[in-house]
């Protein structure tokens, strides 16, 4: 088994895969990669199944030592990484010689970068997933973010004794999967609780991502929605990407480590195809919402999936 040593953990680095499903009745949300599109592509570059576990880094990456070498790929926002002294661009795979160190820097644009290693990170699966759920201390590396001195196991690759072939992503396809700041939403289950005036504020204004945003939810600041008595209802299940309007009239987008139930009305819901864009939002980013119909949302997801699964995506 190959190892990976954490020399510096970065700001918030966790083990993530595509999340755990089916434990809703116990109050467990899916968790999983905040930008699942990036993790899936990163895994394909590293020669893995797209759901293999990788490391999710946030704003500032870590430093990782590979005593046994391996194959790595970075995907997501550009964190200005270096393999020893040589810059390593995202969206490309690289062979790591035994004893080399990968230093991942900070991002200037998005929020998250994934480090995928050939074979995938091996941790004890909790409820069928390697994903870390930070709030409840579930999964990943002891249910927590990585620390200096942690040693991670790398699983055996699917194919052994394979010659390294550098893989990259087609720039034109990548352009189509680029994170957006204009988030497309469908109506939420309580859309009709909100008066036209409140909807005009919601769809007509720019909202700013606040520092309190995390994997549980993205808290927005901006013009509060007026003309609506936002009240509380009896608790009901809340979906990924639900846009709750809190007592102060400001929106919160429920994210991967979301609470599973809640009592605030939901004006809208970010479409599945734009959830990975939420994973690249950083504090002070400015976003807007655009309403689309349900059939359009599904068509956009199908199109995204077509690009993600296309042969043209990965160039060898």
């Amino acid at each position, binding site marked *: 088994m190959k190892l990976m040593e954490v020399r510096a953990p970065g700001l918030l680095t966790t083990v993530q895969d595509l999340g755990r499903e*089916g434990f809703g009745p*116990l109050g467990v949300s899916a968790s999983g990669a905040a930008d699942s599109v990036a993790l899936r592509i990163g895994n394909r570059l590293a020669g893995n199944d797209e759901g293999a576990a990788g490391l999710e880094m946030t704003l500032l990456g870590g430093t990782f030592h590979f005593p046994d070498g391996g194959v790595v790929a970075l995907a997501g926002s550009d964190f200005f990484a270096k393999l020893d002294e040589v810059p390593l661009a995202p969206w490309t795979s690289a062979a790591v010689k035994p004893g080399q160190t990968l230093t991942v820097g900070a991002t200037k644009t998005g929020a998250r970068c994934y480090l995928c290693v050939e074979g995938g990170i091996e941790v004890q699966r909790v409820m069928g997933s390697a994903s870390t759920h930070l709030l409840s201390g579930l999964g990943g590396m002891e249910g927590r973010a990585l620390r200096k001195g942690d040693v991670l196991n790398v699983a055996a690759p699917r194919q052994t004794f394979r010659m390294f072939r550098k893989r990259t992503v087609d720039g034109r396809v990548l352009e189509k999967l680029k994170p957006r700041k204009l988030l497309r939403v469908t109506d939420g*289950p309580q859309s009709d609780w909100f008066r036209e005036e409140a909807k005009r504020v919601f769809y007509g204004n720019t909202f700013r991502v606040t520092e309190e945003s995390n994997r549980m939810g993205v808290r927005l600041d901006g013009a509060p929605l007026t003309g609506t008595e936002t009240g509380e209802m009896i*608790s009901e299940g809340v979906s990924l990407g639900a846009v709750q309007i809190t007592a102060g009239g400001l929106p919160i987008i429920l994210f991967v480590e979301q609470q599973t139930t809640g009592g605030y009305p939901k004006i809208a819901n970010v479409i599945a195809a734009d959830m990975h864009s939420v994973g690249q939002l950083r504090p002070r980013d400015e976003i807007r919402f655009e309403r689309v119909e349900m059939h359009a949302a599904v068509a956009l997801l199908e199109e995204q999936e077509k690009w993600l699964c296309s042969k043209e995506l990965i160039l060898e």
Partner: protein
Amino acid sequence: MPLPIRTRFQVASDQSLLVYFDSSHSREQQSQISKAVHEQVRRLVRLLEAEPVPGVRNVHPGYASVLVNFDALQLRPEKLQEILGGCLERMEKVTLPEPREVEIPVCYGGEYGPDLQSVAELRGLTTQRVIELHAAREYLVYFLGFVPGFAYLGELASELVTPRLPAPRKSVPPGSVGIAKNQTGVYPVATPGGWRLLGRTPLKIFQPDRKEMSLLAIGDRVRFVSISREKFAKLERA
């Protein structure tokens, strides 16, 4: 067989559908928490666990609803609605497991129950009376939600009904027993929280490496038992 309770579907997102078991959507007629409605919620969750629908990823029960998450690439909401409609027709045939009776020891007041005094003052009761009222009842686990293992228990004695704290605490210690409106519950993990804290249990409410990860499940009956600080310390070590 006609259903005693009206059901209604509401699309929640491009990958989730809500099944409501009354008219809780309308604010004017917003339903009260009801045991009969809860029974329907429990039946549907049970049915979907026993006979999983391909493409359904997760279900989230609430007081009067079940949110069904699905893979939008595999299922259309219209199709899912049709399948769930079939489930609803078979609800009466679902056998529910006997509810378990769970006792939760609680050390009330002091550092464990920082809001005991203020709840007593708000309701014009002695702290002793608040404890008696809280521990006297058997509560129903309406559902688990919010965070892993958090059981929404109801209903409180009317004398104890108190609004949430005006500003939630940044972090509530695990095991804290709180009340909010006509509900009570135990925080399984340290989370922010706005419920008023009456005491704390030494029991582990949620442990992923235990066979029964969650101490409580939907439909269970719960009683709180007042214990001393010494007993708390002893149980905590156990």
